[in-house]
């Protein structure tokens, strides 16, 4: 459109110049050429002005976008630490569960083999192939076996509770991984923003879209929750370390 207008204008000027030349009006030709040069210069300056403004804006936004610097400097290393902690936690949970399985297998297999021995002795007694002395011994062994079943059975129950509790890792690591996913998303958005800025085509629609992508009415950090404590971080003293700490804090509040 603009180009079309420019073309029209140049065409009119060229016709006017050629008319002046035909009429031998050299002064008029000079004036028209000057005017033509002026149009050209004005356009150049305007374009230069636009470029300068854009560059200035881009530099300003770039400097303001400290989010990316913050992400690279603190949050990415922090995410690495979190993910390492996830590995440690899942490893511990797996070992804890495996240990329970090993112990439980041992406990049940000793009960199974002992009950097999006693059952064959019991069936000899039932078919009256057992002396009184032997029976007395068997009766004693059965007493011992019942006590053993009771004791090992309750050990198995405790072990199973232990295995149950070990599965809590899924919740804790899940919360940590969710935070890292949010961070990755944050990095992605910042990078897209950076590409947009350096692409120098900063239109009103784009910045509007970027504003809309921000979540409305964020909850404050305390209410939203910040997930599990990651050991060995600098803000460690903001956290309680175990249930005893919680109980002490609550009782100091009069609980």
């Amino acid at each position, binding site marked *: 459109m603009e180009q079309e207008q420019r073309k029209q204008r140049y065409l009119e000027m060229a016709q006017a110049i050629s008319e002046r030349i035909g009429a031998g009006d050299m002064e008029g030709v000079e004036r028209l050429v000057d005017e033509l040069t002026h149009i050209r210069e004005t356009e150049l300056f305007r374009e230069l002005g636009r470029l300068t403004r854009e560059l200035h804006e881009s530099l300003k936004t770039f400097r303001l976008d400290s989010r990316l610097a913050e992400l690279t400097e603190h949050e990415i290393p922090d995410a690495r630490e979190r993910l390492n902690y996830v590995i440690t936690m899942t490893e511990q949970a797996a070992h804890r569960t495996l240990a329970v399985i090993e112990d439980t297998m041992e406990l049940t297999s000793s009960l199974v083999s002992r009950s097999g021995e006693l059952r064959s002795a019991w069936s000899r007694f039932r078919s009256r192939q057992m002396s009184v002395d032997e029976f007395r011994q068997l009766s004693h062994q059965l007493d011992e076996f019942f006590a053993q079943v009771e004791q090992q059975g309750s050990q198995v129950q405790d072990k199973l509770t232990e295995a149950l509790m070990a599965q809590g890792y899924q919740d804790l690591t899940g919360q940590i991984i969710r935070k890292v996913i949010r961070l990755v998303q944050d990095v992605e958005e910042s990078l897209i923003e950076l590409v947009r800025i350096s692409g120098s085509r900063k239109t009103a629609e784009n910045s509007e879209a970027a504003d809309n992508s921000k979540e409305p009415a964020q909850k404050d950090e305390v209410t939203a929750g910040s997930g599990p404590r990651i050991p060995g971080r600098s803000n460690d003293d903001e956290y*309680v370390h175990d249930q005893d700490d919680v109980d002490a804090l609550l009782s100091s509040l009069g609980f």
Partner: protein
Amino acid sequence: MDLDKNMKILIVDDFSTMRRIIKNLLRELGFTNTYEADDGTTALPMLKKGGFDFLITDWNMPGMTGIELLRAVRADPDLATLPVLMVTAEAKREQIIAAAQAGVNGYIVKPFTANTLKEKIERIFERVRAGD
């Protein structure tokens, strides 16, 4: 002490594994009348329908968080006295203080033990009874 093993308990946590763990622990302790919800938004209407004797909730959940649920429960005249136990990974001192101020009856940090859960439940109902 004898607790009412038939009491109706609501377990609120966004992780189904944790709900299952708590449900199993409660069953070991003899409580079988348990219900589940995955965040405050689903839990609150269940509570409002009535009949619940005890609420166990996580803190960090999408939608309505545990602390918001606790505040909503305390603000509702029908639910205001419902005993609430928080079982959460949120371990900031200011959060525990916030929960206490909002009127929580007990606070357990994850990871926790079966015994801690038992102790806290007993303690909560001891106090509830003493307050009667």
